[in-house]
């Protein structure tokens, strides 16, 4: 009886451990590949244990770059990705905070119209309107700039909606108290509302940082200079080759490096991440 209990107790662990292993397996394979040389991989004879080329591959990836395709060191690309992700995340939060503030705390003509104009953009991703958007960014002379890379992605119905939702729950008494103190709307916003929203802002930041970091098709089209590339598009460029074999070991090292920052953000700021997910999908 006791034996049976133990088995029953252990079964969920077993299932979970298998689940964790399956989820981690692709990344493990990528990591292993990033420690071997090109020939071993392309001959299909890579074993499932780490190889001897770890330091060499990562050094080459980060500081030298894949001579075969993207050329630019991945270090530079990571910096580009970081700038892009931070700008998108901070930009989205900033403009969404103030627009949600306007929609919730003011009454003015066309308030709901404005809200709907923003809201309709909620789900339509940039992929669906990619060619005209590209043309407009080119017309505005924003190709190959961080502005072109980020501003078109900054408009965010998601964040606006989230902050609107949150502001609704802020007690009206706070506004009244603030008014009695003679504070204007901006003072209330800065001194009361933003401090109250700080966890929501942080949660939003985690989600939007990941969104920004993982952008793919947009940077692929909009960057034409080698030194403006981001790390995610570099991987795709590394695996297509003309009259040459793919340097899988470097592509996989790049993949590992591309995953590292957003995964770290999720794991380290897990609570905020979960809060962000739950709130954005409400």
């Amino acid at each position, binding site marked *: 009886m006791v034996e049976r209990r133990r088995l029953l107790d252990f079964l969920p662990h077993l299932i979970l451990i298998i689940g964790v292993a399956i989820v981690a397996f692709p990344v493990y394979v990528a990591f292993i590949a990033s420690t071997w040389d090109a020939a071993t991989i392309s001959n299909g004879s890579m074993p499932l244990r780490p190889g001897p080329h770890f330091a060499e591959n990562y050094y080459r990836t980060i500081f030298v770059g894949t001579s075969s395709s993207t050329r630019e060191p991945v270090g530079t690309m990571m910096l580009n990705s970081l700038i892009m992700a931070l700008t998108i995340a901070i930009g989205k939060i900033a403009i969404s905070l103030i627009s949600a503030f306007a929609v919730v705390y003011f009454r003015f003509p066309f308030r709901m119209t404005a809200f709907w104009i923003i809201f309709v953009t909620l789900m339509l991703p940039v992929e669906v309107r990619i060619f005209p958007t590209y043309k407009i960014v*080119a017309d505005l002379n924003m190709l190959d700039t961080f502005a072109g890379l980020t501003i078109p992605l900054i408009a965010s119905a998601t964040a606006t909606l989230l902050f609107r939702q949150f502001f609704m729950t802020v007690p009206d008494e706070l506004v009244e108290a603030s008014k009695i103190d003679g504070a204007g709307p901006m003072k209330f916003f800065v001194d009361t509302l933003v401090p109250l929203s700080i966890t929501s802002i942080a949660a939003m930041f985690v989600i939007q940082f990941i969104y920004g970091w993982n952008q793919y098709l947009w940077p692929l089209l909009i960057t034409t200079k080698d030194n403006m590339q981001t790390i995610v598009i570099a991987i795709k460029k590394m695996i297509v080759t003309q009259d040459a074999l793919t340097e899988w070991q470097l592509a996989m090292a790049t993949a590992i490096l591309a995953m590292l920052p957003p995964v770290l953000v999720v794991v380290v700021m897990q609570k905020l991440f979960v809060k962000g997910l739950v709130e954005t999908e409400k």
Partner: protein
Amino acid sequence: MKFDRRSLLGAAVLAASLGAAPAQAQTEIQWWHAMTGANNDVIVKLAEEFNASPKDFKVVPAYKGSYADTLNAGIAAFRAGNAPHILQVFEVGTATMMGARGAIKPVQDMMKEAGESFDPKSYLPAITGYYSTTKGEMLSFPFNSSSAVMWFNKDKFRQAGLNPDQPPKTWPDVFEAAKKLKAVSPTCGFSTAWITWVNIEQLGAWHNTPLGTKANGMDGFDTQFQINSPLFVRHLQNLIDLQKDKTFDYSGRTNTGEGRFTSGECPLFMTSSAFFGNVRANAKFEWGNSVLPYYPDVAGAPQNSIIGGASLWVMGGKKADEYKGVAKFFTFLSNVDRQVKLHTESGYLPITKAAYEKVKASGFYTQNPHLETPLLQLNNKEPTDNSRGLRFGGLVQIRDVWAEEVEAALTGKKSAKEALDSAVSRGNDMLRQFERTVSR
């Protein structure tokens, strides 16, 4: 105070303009390309070499992804008014570029206007023919040219009891050899990269059989496909039959399957002659290459093969000064010794007659017969209307449609005839759409 500030500003402007002066004098030439691996190094080295000589121009190469991605990026950039000066376009994109006369600057005109000495006759006609008008006007500058050849693994040939010095000559021979090779490589007797390039486009030229009317589109955009004629149906049917037991095994639309040869999995593999560099670097067995096989009962076979690879298109609407730089760069590329070096190092074909002759005279080919195979094949016979080249509008997209149909046939969803009939009718629709947009 005000005065001070203004003079400060003036000084700043002056300083800025002085600082900017050297940069301004150097005209930048954007070069978008699709080269990876050792060939990417070649491009960067060429640009560095050109930029190092004391000139007023700076060539800036940028890798834009696959051939299709590069063309896509170039077109999108042109529409947005931001095209590069030089765009590397693969051979199937030729008609697309030609159809857009307003978007390009014909190389021959540009060279003349820039005052560079330029003689179209000094280039190998088998190569430039593909990129010239019927009147012989050269529109783009051939950069990396290759042809499809057959690579084989001599070690596996020995194991299978085949003579490694006698590669199969005809398709029936290939099928026989592949059946024997299957004993030593059960997952793949033979295979090809670039499924349509090798098995439709090269097949047609090599058998002097048209792919389409109007000399494969060379004589006008109102061409119709004919790839459902008996030769193509028979060849596809053979592939379908052999796919069933992996005597033939499909390796994808592009060259991503080439690793199957270097890894030893596929002992017989048809792909670009430019695969040379990788074979040399990665194959851990004795290898060789030879000309493409043919069906001996087809009259006129073997004819000559056609080229693959890419050429450099000069985009329109740039400044005369910039064209001067591009023209100088092309002259730099045509230099005999540079061509010899490019050819012998990268495995791409030399583009000038002088370079070819020089390599031949040096005895290089007796040591490296692999590099001459594509040249022998291209020059096998005087080209006919069926083997001069292809000029089908929208071939980039049409190739995908063909590949789709071939894939459907190889998986048994369609018969060879059905698949090719459908490839013809869908291809014709796309030709008409292209014709409609260029004819006005």
